[in-house]
Each structure stands twice: as structure tokens, then as C-alpha cells.
């Protein structure tokens, strides 16, 4: 009898093919949008768009070209030179994400004076302007460190304070280039002092360069897969995260719709006819549950197959792990909304509540954003949502490459939730008078 009930539900579901196609396509479409937004088509490392950047300053032409070329070739920036008024306009208009204001006189960088490099950030940018700032800070840290180590090692090489001997200043003092040249050619005391200081500086710089080799610290950074991390940023194919999350999210809608079919059958009169058939006490509910589970399995199969073909999603190393997780998830979600279907009075009410519950659970349970990146309070709340356990199970398989043995505890939780919710549905059904209560 159960088989007949399930076949009947499948036929009813298949009769509205357009809705079926939408149900199967929507998760794929949304996965594509999310994946392309954050991981690039076909998976792999996220593609970063070059950040439009304004450069303000008046360095010599050669330095200007080299700086611009280096920034452009890094692939991180799309620089444009302009004056400060234009930079202000571009930043405020959002045409560049930030402006970097170099000192008006680059000689300042080689003087004892304190120098500030300015950064103007786009007020409408929530991310890229911060990236510009962080990269500049990291680069500047090396310059600052270099100056600190040099001056701590050879303080006499530092910029002379007022009143102290200044070999280069003394050599270059004068009102003409010819006077400077005569001092150098004649081997004057000023030229000798400058030569000695110049040699000392070169010796010190050579010594410092040598001192960096070998590096004092051999830092090894490995990511979760045990591979040495090359760059900074996520290493996982984003689709491994996104696709199961979206799949479970839309499976919740499908499960709610399957449970809500009770209301549609009641409104259409088929439920009344069904109830006069010789059904067991809970056959109707179990039939709905079986149909919802098969429907969910089909959705997951289509989704993972497409995810593998289109987005190179990982299906995990263990061929049994993914099917087991899919069955457990489908069983759990199929039972999740059955009690609600029995407690609501019509399809609209059921739809409204189930959609609200689905959206809330998806948000807190990690279907939209990885639970690990949520605030602690939401992480704790997430554990009380059934979809959290499904998300974790699929993450274990696709992201962490775990097998059946590793996922068994979570699969047990999923089957446990399925059993409890099905039992609750049967209890509600019986408490409300069985078949008569459905009408």
C-alpha cells in the first residue's frame, strides 16, 4: 500500500513539470551565482578584480613609470596618476577605491624628518579600500624595519642632526655644480669625508644584506590539507562549501512543499477519497515521508552530479560517504515539516511558517555563511538546527575529504532527528483522531 501511495505522490509531483524544473534548477543557478562571485567559474582560487587606485605625487618620470608598472603587473591594482583635487573627486565618486598620497618631495623619505604617506579611502567601499590600506601597511613595515635595524646597528650613518658633521652636505654645499666638481677632483677634505662615509654606508649595507642570509626563522605554513600554503586566501574550491549549503537550503523548501501536499490533497478532495481506502494507521504519513525523501534524494543527486560536472565540486574520497549523507539528510528533512503540516490549517499558513522557519534555520545553521565565521552566539544557536548537522556532514566529505567512518556520528544525528520528527508527526496524527483528524 505504501508503494501505491508513493507512486501516486510522484505522479502528482511530475504532473507540474515546470515547477519540477524550477525546483531542480534554482539551487544550481544560485550555486553558480555564489560560486562565480567568490570562487570563479569552475572552482579554484578566487579571482580578485584589480582595485582602482589613484596615486598623488610628483616623483621623477622613471620612478613614476616603474611604480605604476609594478602596481599594474601585481594584478592587484589599476593605478592612475593625478593631483590631489582629482584624487579627492575620484575617491568621493567611487571611481577609485583609494588614493595614495606620496610626499610632495620624495627627498623627505631620505631626510631625518618624519614623513606621512596619506591614504584616502572611498566612503562607499566596505572592502577594497581596506585591502589597499593593509597592503600598504605590510609593505611599509619592511621599510620601517629596514630603517630601524640599520640605525640601531650604525647610528652614525643616520641623518645628521643640526650642528653635527655632515660629509655629504659639506661636499654638496656651494652655489654651483662646478664648485662641487672641483672639490671632488681636487681630493678636498670634504670629498674625502664624503667618500669615506659613502664607502662605510655601502659596507654596512652589504653586511646587512649578508646578515639576512640564511633567514633567522624558517616559517612553514601549511593549510588544512597539509599542503604548504602559497598565497594568502581561501584554498578550497568555493563550490565545495556553497553547493551542499544551497542544496540543503532548497531541499528544505521541497520537504516543506511535500509535507504541505496534505493540505493540497484536502483542498482538492483526493484526501477524503484516500482515507476511505484500507490504509494502516500511519501509512499516509509514512507515504508522504517516503515520497519527500525520494524527492530530496533526486534533488541532491542532480545537484551533486551537476556540481561535479560544471564546478568540479569534490565528492570526497569515499564513494559511500556522499550517498550515505544524502540519504540521511533527505530522511531528516522529509520528516522535519510533517508535524507542521498536521498542526497548520491550510496550505498558505503552512507555506508561510515553513518558509520562515527554513530561512531562519538556513541563516543560523550555516547554509549561507560558514558557521565558523559567525559570531559565537550564532555558532552556538546553529547547533540546534537540523540543517547544521547536514551542512557539517557534507563539509566533512567535500571539504575535509572524510570517509564513512568519520561521518557516522553526524549521520547518526541526522537519522535520529528523522526518527524523532516522524514519531512526533505520528503522535500528533493519532492525538488528533487519526484519519478523521486530517479532514
Amino acid at each position, binding site marked *: 500500500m505504501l508503494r501505491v501511495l508513493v507512486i501516486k505522490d510522484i505522479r502528482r509531483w511530475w504532473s507540474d513539470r*515546470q*515547477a519540477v524544473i*524550477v525546483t531542480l534548477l*534554482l539551487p544550481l543557478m544560485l550555486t553558480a551565482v555564489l560560486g*562565480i*562571485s567568490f570562487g570563479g567559474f569552475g572552482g579554484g582560487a578566487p579571482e580578485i578584480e584589480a582595485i582602482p587606485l589613484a596615486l598623488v605625487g610628483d616623483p621623477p618620470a622613471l620612478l613614476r613609470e616603474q611604480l605604476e608598472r609594478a602596481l599594474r603587473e601585481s594584478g592587484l591594482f589599476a593605478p592612475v596618476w593625478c593631483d590631489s583635487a582629482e584624487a*579627492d573627486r575620484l575617491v*568621493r*565618486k567611487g571611481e577609485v577605491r583609494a588614493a595614495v598620497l606620496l610626499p610632495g618631495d620624495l627627498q623627505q*623619505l631620505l631626510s631625518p624628518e*618624519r*614623513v*606621512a*604617506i*596619506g591614504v584616502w*579611502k572611498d*566612503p*562607499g*567601499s*566596505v*572592502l577594497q579600500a581596506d585591502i589597499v590600506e593593509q597592503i600598504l601597511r605590510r609593505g*611599509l*613595515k619592511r621599510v*620601517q*624595519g629596514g630603517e*630601524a*635595524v640599520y640605525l*640601531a*646597528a650604525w647610528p652614525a650613518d643616520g641623518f645628521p642632526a643640526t650642528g653635527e658633521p655632515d660629509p655629504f652636505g659639506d661636499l654638496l654645499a656651494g652655489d654651483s655644480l662646478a664648485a662641487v666638481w672641483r672639490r671632488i677632483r681636487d681630493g678636498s677634505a670634504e670629498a674625502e669625508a664624503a667618500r669615506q662615509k659613502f664607502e662605510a654606508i655601502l659596507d*654596512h649595507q652589504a*653586511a646587512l644584506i*649578508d*646578515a*639576512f642570509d640564511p*633567514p*633567522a*626563522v*624558517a*616559517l*612553514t*605554513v601549511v*593549510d*588544512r590539507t597539509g599542503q604548504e*600554503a602559497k598565497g*594568502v*586566501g581561501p*584554498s578550497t574550491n568555493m563550490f565545495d*562549501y556553497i553547493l551542499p549549503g544551497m542544496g540543503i537550503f532548497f531541499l528544505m523548501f521541497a520537504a516543506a512543499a511535500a509535507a504541505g501536499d496534505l493540505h493540497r490533497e484536502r483542498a482538492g478532495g483526493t484526501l477524503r477519497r484516500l482515507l476511505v481506502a484500507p490504509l494502516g494507521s500511519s501509512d499516509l504519513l509514512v507515504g508522504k515521508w517516503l515520497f519527500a525523501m525520494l524527492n530530496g534524494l533526486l534533488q541532491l543527486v542532480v545537484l551533486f552530479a551537476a556540481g561535479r560536472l560544471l564546478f568540479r565540486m569534490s565528492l570526497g574520497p569515499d564513494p559511500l560517504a556522499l550517498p550515505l549523507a544524502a540519504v540521511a539528510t533527505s530522511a531528516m528533512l522529509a520528516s522535519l515539516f510533517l508535524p507542521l503540516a498536521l498542526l497548520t490549517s491550510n496550505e498558505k*499558513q503552512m507555506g*508561510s511558517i515553513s518558509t520562515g522557519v527554513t*530561512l531562519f534555520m538556513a*541563516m543560523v545553521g550555516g547554509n549561507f*555563511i*560558514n558557521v*565558523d*565565521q*559567525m*559570531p559565537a*552566539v550564532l555558532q552556538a544557536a546553529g547547533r540546534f538546527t537540523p540543517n547544521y548537522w547536514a551542512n557539517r556532514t557534507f563539509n566533512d566529505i567535500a*571539504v575535509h575529504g572524510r570517509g564513512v567512518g568519520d561521518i557516522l556520528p553526524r549521520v547518526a544525528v541526522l537519522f535520529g532527528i528523522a526518527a524523532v520528527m516522524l514519531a512526533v508527526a505520528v503522535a500528533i496524527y493519532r492525538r488528533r483522531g487519526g484519519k478523521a483528524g486530517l479532514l
Partner: protein
Amino acid sequence: MNTGVIQALVTLHVRQVVADRSNLFWLFGMPLMFTVLMGMIFGDMGGGAPEAPEVTVYDESRGPASGALIAALGGHENYRIVVADSAGSWDLARSLVDAGRRTASLHIPAAFDANLALGLPAALSLAYDPDRASAQTVRTALEEAVLRLEFLSAGRRAEAGFDEARFDSIWRDPRITLEVRTLGRLGGEPQPSALTGFTSGFQHTGPSYTLMFVLMFMLMSVRDVVTQRRNGTLRRLRLAAASPWLLATGLFLGPLAVGLVQAAVLLGLNLLLPGMDYGGSPGALVLTMVLFTAVSSALALCVATFCRTPGQADGLGMTASMLLASLGGLWWPLEVVPGFMQKIAMALPTGQAVTIFHNMIGRGWGLAGNAAHLAALAGMLAVLLVLAAARFRRLVD
């Protein structure tokens, strides 16, 4: 024109919405819940972290250099350093990250301090989860601490009289610095009361989820139009001498009225959230919401003409609202997606509307600054109205 029919249809829609109490949850409760929860999540990602995942340090060296390194990593709000009581192996450190139990684990081998003192390379190993923001922060902090050690060590090797105190002093207070400023939206120097850029996750999620739920509620009501068509209500109205134009106008204005009330309440309640305001142009705010709500209503009417069953209406309505929200930048700021995705977003009403909100909040732009985006919304409205009217006429005639 028989405005009575339009009035009746609008009143009918409003009454239908109000009669079902669960609609109140959809109109106001759900959007607010999303705004607050997603605002918390965005705020965390932006740096103000209530979450502080553990980073375990296995210090087998237990010397001054390793102690200084651990101290340099501490005091960050995105993670908390826990030095393990017992010395652990590199395999243990890695296994914790592999199992997802730690965001990162640092292993300092026993020879670390001794090697540094002898001028030999000192090994250091970090296992981290690159998909976690907190792990990225740990890595950055560790690399800066290692950089300092590199400089310090090079100074010691290069010159016997290396002055560590002077090094530390210059390292902490460098001569060349970075002066960062976010250009305030009031122009010129930032004002004390002005928002400087986006200072709160709610500044994105508040407007975004208002737009999303206005759109979603409209598209969810597509089912009502399909049901009215299937049960013959529209045909009966048509027979009662209501022209297709009147019917279409009534079905367009009803959801528009509800949507405007929904938007006004949500935008008002959003103001209670930390850091929220909408800039200094009420005119731009009102016009944006009127145009966006009208576009949503016209779109819903269009979608309704393509659906034959309530099931199709639900599916298509949900598909359209989810795709428009995600592609249009309502789920995340558009600047994080590739350039071609940003261009797609600008072809959608959601992308235009959320850009106007970002411009109002971040840049303080009003009607003039947002004129192009407002014109784009008006253009979309015109196209959708023409399409909806044409489709609807074919449907009821």
C-alpha cells in the same frame, strides 16, 4: 476611467494581506531578523569580532624569544592565543586544524631559542585553516612577528654593537608612517557626527534586506494573482466591464501600496540599529523606495502572467527573488564580486537600488548624485509596466 475598480482591487489586496496575520511576520518580522543577524555576521567579518576562536601554541622551546613571539601574537580581538600546558608535536598541532577544532595551531620546536641565539635558522610551523578570517589574521600577525625577528637577528649578525633598545624604539615609533582617512560624506574634513564610510554591518544589511523582503513579498503574492485567474475571479471582473488596463492597474497598485508601507516601517525600524542612517536626502530615499517598490510590483505582475499554476508561481517567484537579491548585491557588497558580475548587477533593479543606498549612506549623495541610478530604475519600471500590461491583456481577453 472607472477608478472604482482599481480602488476595489487595491482594497481587496490590502485586506487579504492584513487578514492573514502570518503576513505580518513576513512583512516586518523576518526582514528585521535577517537584518540584525546578518548585520552581526558582517560586523564580525569586518573586524569587530565577538567570536574569538582558539589558536593553540605548542611552545617546546619555552625561552625568551619564543615568549616574545607569543606575546607579539596576543591581544587580537579576532582570536585568542592559548599556550598548551604540555608540549605537543607538530602532528598534534596539525591534526587539531585538520579536524576543524582550531582555526590555527603554532608549533615552536625545542631548538627555537637556542638556534636563534647561535644565529642558526630557527624553525617555526603554523597549521591554519585558510578559509577562516581569524586564521588569516593569525597568519598576518605571525608573519609580522617573524619579520621583526628577521630584522633583529640580521642586526645582531651584522654588527656586534647592535643596539636592540634603539631598534625596538624605532620599530614601535617609525619615522615614515601611514595616515589613513576615509573621506567623510559631508565633504571636506570629516565631521564628528558623520559616518565615515561603512562603520557598521547594518549599513549594508538594513537597506539590503528591506529591498529583498519588499521584492520577495511582492513575488510571493504572484500566487494570489494566479489563483484569481484559475478560479475565474479575473474573468468575472472582466465580464463586469473592467478593462484589462483597469485590472492590471489595480493588481499593480495593490501590492505597491502594501510594499510602500512595508518599506516605510522597515526603514524606520532600521534606524534603531547602531550606526544606521540614510544620508541627508529624504527626497532620494523616498523616490528610491517608490521606484523600487513599483518595479517589484510590475515584475510580480509580469511573472504572474507567465505562471499557470500556484506551484509554478511559488517556484518562479522564489527563483526570481533569490536571483535578483544575490546577483544585485543584496546578500553581499557588490565590490567583492568580479567586474562582469558588477555589470550584471547594474542591469537589475536590486543592483541599482542598493547602489543608491550605498551612495546615500557612504557618500552622502542625494537626488543629483544618484540621478543616473534613479533614471535606470524609472526606465526598468516603464519597460516592465509595458510588458506586464501587454501580457496581461492577452491573458484576460
